[in-house]
């Protein structure tokens, strides 16, 4: 075949296609990311406009939704005026206000994706997708299956198409219904030659492939991910998007042959007029401008009051005798727990940092056949930590095993275990409890096991990973952690490092509930490992030399906060000195009390729990809720997240931020040049921004960018969910996770001087892209003057808040008990 004059470059087109497809990993590795990552090279509003018209996504709330938010006063009029003045000019405020509030706009044009392939139905009266998809999905799912089927795909380890060929070659039946497609498959065809048969017109090949793959973006996306990151499936499968395209084209030929016989003219020859090219410029419409104005107004209606709250200066007296210090994950869910700790025990201090605690490694639980990555997803660790001496047993559950699906065993099991199932269901409904089916953060690592943290011999390696860390490596990481959060002196006797995880049952998206900085796992191992580092006498010596002198009596204790159940477990408490053990006992009681109050605060969003009850009984209800089979919302995760504050605790300590803020501790005073700041700012985009945008887009278009309601979900091959048995995979978040989320971008607020921050964010282009293209908002608050500077178009300009004062509330509890919705920022101290 001669492609010399070809305008169709297969490699390039597939590369571009992969770039646009959803990049979601299998369920067990759920990593939050910007759903519209393919458009991130554009400014936010331009990107949204293009994504919407090209791919048919709904990218913001609708005009009606915005208008009703305005009616409810949740979008502020003064902010609207200011936004219009900024975007359209001060003289056009009245004109545009009229438009955004009252004008009736024409509904947007049909999306471009799919318009080419819709010609099959228009000119051939054939519903190609419904003839091709069911079998295609079924074969893909069976090929990639991780352990649902009992009888696996019979040919493996040879790649997708090779396996199919092998089976077609020696079989009495065929996947195809007609001859030609089967013959073509055995000739190992390339994409261009098949497109010539199906489409004919080379100028639309690319568009055809986009149409074809975006007709099932879920399956195409998972194939693309598995191609790029094969280790994301424990049972590895070799499959590429190219193979998928070839097989799908063959199935299309098969379907067309079946319908029309071997002689039909390709799609290109029947087209009367060519559809608009997918990637042609998308003109700006007035409606989109109005929507952009609304979006900005919605965002600033909230930001403005937050900034007003932050701007007010309060001096806190230094704490004389610190009872304990506790370092939590940056996660927005820890926001309220920290507040309660400080309230109950004003002599304690809390900090926030990404929950892998600056130590990156693979973890192998005892008897585990695989390694688990415990650090942010883009990092590739060189270390291995192994668990030894675990005593916990994994419970089995015959109801979940596959044995009941056989003919004879099924006969026995259904007449025995079947009745047991009725009882189990009964108990589960009336007295929910932890069981083998529960995904629990505490199962991640056995509390009483030992970890191979220290490396004594550089040759102690497994699979090219060093087992444990040496002293120097430990010290480097400990130093990085403590300096980045500004904890270099005035240590309390006990310092906690508390990671987080979650528990849920009947929840395929369980990994999305765990710590994002630990690649969707619980942070228990990391906290334990880092505590071991810092408690190590040799490490302390080095730390002291580097300006972090830790008193000998200070001890670090690891822990894990289960954000669903609001429980904390601690690790290696036996190594505490007797004095510190006494402190710890006292602290535990305080933490328990704070957890009760935290549970109460969370319960205001749960209809099944009465928020007026006392904290202890609410906490019990929340624990039961976490193991209830019928509870699709064990917790609300990152829903409502909107802020990320990088700075000292004094900035936020007196504010009620309603669990909406990521909080990273940082002290500008020990980092005047911003050298440590880069390390902090770099992951904020991909991690916090990623979480925020995933919630944003799953919220605004729960059908196409989210997973829809989870109630009918069916687990496919253990790596994805679909509706029913022959649907497309549903990437993104289910509606139960996002329904209370307000789709606004993340506002990052950094406490430092604007010139330092500007320098830091410009150091790396991929970091800068997040800010310059406004996928996150950035405001800098000057540490001394508390002046605010907003980053826009590459520079910082002073920002004056419209709201001057925020309300002061002495006790937040009555407000919590009477409101389910998002609360404004209050001053509470």
């Amino acid at each position: 075949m001669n492609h010399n004059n070809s305008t169709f470059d297969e490699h390039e087109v597939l590369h571009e296609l992969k770039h646009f497809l959803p990049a979601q990993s299998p369920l067990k590795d759920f990593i939050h990311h910007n759903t519209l990552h393919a458009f991130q090279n554009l400014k936010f509003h331009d990107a949204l406009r293009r994504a919407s018209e090209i791919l048919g996504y709904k990218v913001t709330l609708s005009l009606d939704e915005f208008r009703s938010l305005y009616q409810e006063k949740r979008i502020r009029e003064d902010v609207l005026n200011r936004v219009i003045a900024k975007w359209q000019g001060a003289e056009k405020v009245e004109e545009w206000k009229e438009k955004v509030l009252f004008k009736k706009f024409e509904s947007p044009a049909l999306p471009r994706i799919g318009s080419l392939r819709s010609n099959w139905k228009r000119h051939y009266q054939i519903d190609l997708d419904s003839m091709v998809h069911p079998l295609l999905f079924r074969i893909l799912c069976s090929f990639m299956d991780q352990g649902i089927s009992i009888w696996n795909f019979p040919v493996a380890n040879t790649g997708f198409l090779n396996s199919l060929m092998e089976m077609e070659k020696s079989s009495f039946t065929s996947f195809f219904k007609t001859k030609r497609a089967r013959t073509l498959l055995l000739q190992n065809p390339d994409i261009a030659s098949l497109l010539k048969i199906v489409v004919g017109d080379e100028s639309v090949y690319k568009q055809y492939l986009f149409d074809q793959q975006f007709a099932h973006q879920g399956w195409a996306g998972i194939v693309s991910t598995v191609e790029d990151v094969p280790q994301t499936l424990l049972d590895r499968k070799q499959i590429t998007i190219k193979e998928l395209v070839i097989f799908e084209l063959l199935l299309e030929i098969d379907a067309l042959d079946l319908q029309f016989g071997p002689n039909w003219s390709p799609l290109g020859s029947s087209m009367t007029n060519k559809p608009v090219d997918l990637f042609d410029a998308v003109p700006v419409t007035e409606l989109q401008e109005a929507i952009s104005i609304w979006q900005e107004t919605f965002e600033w209606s909230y930001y403005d009051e937050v900034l007003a709250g932050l701007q007010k200066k309060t001096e806190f007296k230094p704490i004389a005798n610190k009872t304990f210090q506790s370092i939590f994950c940056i996660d927005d869910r820890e926001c309220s727990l920290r507040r309660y700790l400080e309230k109950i025990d004003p002599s304690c201090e809390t900090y926030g940092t990404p929950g892998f605690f600056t130590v990156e490694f693979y973890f192998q639980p005892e008897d585990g056949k695989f390694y688990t990555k415990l650090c942010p997803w883009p990092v590739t660790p060189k270390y291995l930590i192994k668990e030894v001496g675990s005593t916990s047993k994994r419970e089995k559950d015959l109801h979940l095993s596959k044995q009941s699906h056989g003919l004879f065993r099924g006969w026995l099991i259904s007449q025995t275990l079947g009745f047991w199932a009725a009882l189990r269901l009964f108990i589960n409904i009336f007295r929910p409890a932890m069981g083998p089916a529960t995904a629990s953060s505490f199962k991640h690592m056995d509390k009483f096991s030992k970890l191979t943290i220290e490396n004594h011999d550089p040759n102690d390696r497994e699979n090219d990973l060093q087992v444990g860390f040496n002293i120097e490596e430990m010290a480097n990481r400990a130093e990085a952690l403590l300096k980045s959060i500004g904890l270099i002196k005035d240590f309390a006797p006990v310092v906690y490092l508390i990671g987080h995880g979650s528990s849920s049952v009947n929840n395929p998206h369980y990994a999305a509930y765990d710590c994002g900085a630990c690649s969707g796992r619980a942070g228990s191992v990391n906290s334990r490992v880092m505590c071991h580092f810092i408690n190590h006498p040799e490490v302390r010596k080095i730390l002291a030399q580097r300006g972090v002198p830790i008193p000998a009596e200070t001890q670090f204790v690891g822990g894990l906060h289960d954000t669903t159940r609001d429980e904390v477990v601690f690790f290696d408490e036996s190594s505490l000195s007797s004095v510190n053990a006494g402190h710890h006992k006292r602290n535990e009681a305080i933490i328990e009390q704070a957890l009760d109050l935290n549970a109460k605060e969370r319960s205001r969003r749960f209809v099944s729990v009465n928020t007026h009850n006392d904290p202890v009984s609410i906490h019990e209800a929340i624990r039961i809720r976490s193991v209830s089979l019928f509870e699709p919302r064990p917790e609300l995760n990152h829903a409502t997240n909107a802020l990320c504050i990088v700075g000292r605790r004094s900035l936020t300590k007196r504010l009620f931020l309603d669990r909406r803020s990521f909080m990273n501790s940082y002290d500008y005073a020990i980092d005047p040049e911003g050298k440590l700041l880069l390390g902090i700012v770099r992951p904020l985009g991909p991690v916090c921004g990623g979480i925020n945008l995933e919630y944003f887009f799953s919220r605004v278009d729960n059908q196409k960018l989210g997973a829809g309601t989870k109630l009918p979900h069916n687990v496919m091959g253990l790596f994805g969910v679909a509706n029913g048995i022959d649907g497309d995979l549903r990437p993104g978040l289910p509606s139960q996770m996002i329904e209370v989320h307000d789709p606004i971008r993340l506002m990052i607020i950094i406490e430092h001087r604007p010139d330092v921050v500007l320098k830091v964010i410009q150091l790396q282009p991929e970091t800068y892209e997040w800010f310059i293209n406004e996928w996150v908002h950035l405001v800098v608050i000057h540490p001394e003057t508390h002046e605010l500077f907003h980053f826009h178009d590459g520079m910082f300009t002073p920002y004056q808040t419209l709201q001057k004062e925020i309300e002061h509330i002495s006790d937040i509890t009555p407000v919590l008990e009477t409101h389910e919705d998002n609360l404004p920022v209050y001053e509470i101290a």
Partner: protein
Amino acid sequence: MTFLLQFFILLPILGFAISLIIPDKKEDLLSWGAFTTVGLHLLAATVFVVYWLLQGHETLNLKDIVIYQTTDYSFFIDFYFDKITMVYLMVGAILTFLVTIYSRYYMHREGGYKRFFNTILFFYIGYNIAIFSGNLETLFIGWEILGISSFLLIAFYRDRYLPVKNAVKVFSIYRIGDVGLILAMWMSHHLWHENITFLKLTNYELVSEHLQGHTVIGVFISLMILLSAAAKSAQLPFSSWLPRAMEGPTPSSAIFYGSLSVHLGVFLLLRTYPFWEHQLSVRIVIIVLGLLTSLITTFIARVQSSVKSQIAYASISQIGLIFIEVAAGFEKLALFHFAGNAFLRTYQLLVSPSVVSYLIREQFYNFVPRVKTIEDSLPKKIEYTFYMLALKEWNLDSLMYRYLWNPLKWVGRRLDFLTLERVIYFGIPAYLVGLFIVYNQDLVSPEIERYLPYLFSLIALFMVLKAFTERRQARMSWLLVVMNHFWIALAISFNEHFSFSDVHLYLSGVAVAGVLGFECLRWLKKQEGNIDLDQFHGHSYKHSKVAFVFLIACLGVSGFPITPTFVGEDLIFTHIHEDQPWLALIVSLSFIIDGLSIIRVYARVFLGPHVKSIYEMAYRSS
């Protein structure tokens, strides 16, 4: 205590009626209503059963209401209670009770919360009517309610394409089962000359006396019952509908397709066992069918890579075994097996989302790169062949299309010359001529008159075939469906001593519902413009009230037990003689397609992704 039986039907009807008037937003009231209804039902059932067992568990029979009576025809509701009813009652009440509580929390904030509980209670009415039924007619009422509530539950997410498509698919299989039952009723009228009760069937002398000399009729009735049971219980060749029914919220899939609905075929067999017990050939057919189903679906279950389809096929294979147990005469074992299988599959479906964390953990700790299965010992070529066949579900899904629906569509498309005008300008005069002949039967020779029923019923069939394949006008399709009934009535009028009342009874419901439906479509067309049948329009998105009214009209026209047409349908069949199998075939075929055309109009116009809100709808494939 016999009179108590009817209260087991009335209670869910009352609960359902109340649930209809509770406003949408009152989640608490809705779920408490359902909870109270089913809870009381469970309580009453438990007390009743204990008392009944203590009283010596005698079989109970209650001839309840005579709905229609002529000299040689009586349509009456009859209730019956024996140990089969007892087991089905207890299993059904327990599972529905548990699932109601489960759904109370599970469905929280879901759009359609009310619709869900309405449909659950509606289903529960149908289930109880079916299991308490004392004759085929009563059973059929329950059967029809189950069919329509299944359709509504599968299409619960009515704004997506696949649930709607699969709901129509499942409905079409159910319709085949319905007609099996209608034909069985038709023939048994001729066999018994009455609406035989199940109680009388247990009288061995009576049954064998009647079957003597009517072997063929006996076998025919049994086979029709088997057809109906096989369709309902997803036995071959209908199996592929069951996994496709798993489109609704998980608890509804669990209770209906995991347990209750799918075991009603077994119930039908158990209930009619005394009738075919002595027909050895029938018992062999059932055993062979059960065995084939068990074997084939076990293989299909083994290759399933999605958790719900795996459970569905595993359940079908167990039901195949239950069929064998029933046919072999192990009634108690079958009942025990039914209960165990129903509980097990319900629980498995309810916890099915848990498999991800559970099996991934298992895999993490116990991974073996390639597990050898029994099939690996087969020669490669055999292994591959079996695997591919199992993966393609032995083509069961496409089989239905290829051999049943496609030929019908082919015929329908030959009728494209029928336009709205032609249907009216030709149809109405022709009908009047027919009507004239009815009144003046002496004008035509008896020779010709004998063929007239066939001619008119064929016209009726063509009407409905055209309605089924009409790609454009919804109103035209609707009109044809309504006219189909009139033609059938005309055809039957020639068959026997003409009885006005019978025909009026039959047509009264059709006429009212027909006008109502036509008005809905006319109004909608005026509002929305295009409502052509070549695509789904999803108008329930904006016009849910009209959709509801139209649904009622659909039920009326399709002879659902809310109008007299339902009794009339049964009556019409009694006028077809036992030596007119072709007429029976034509009429029953037109009943099948009639139901399908109606549901097709409803689905295409009101369900599916809303065409005018593309940016808010899911992709078609999801």
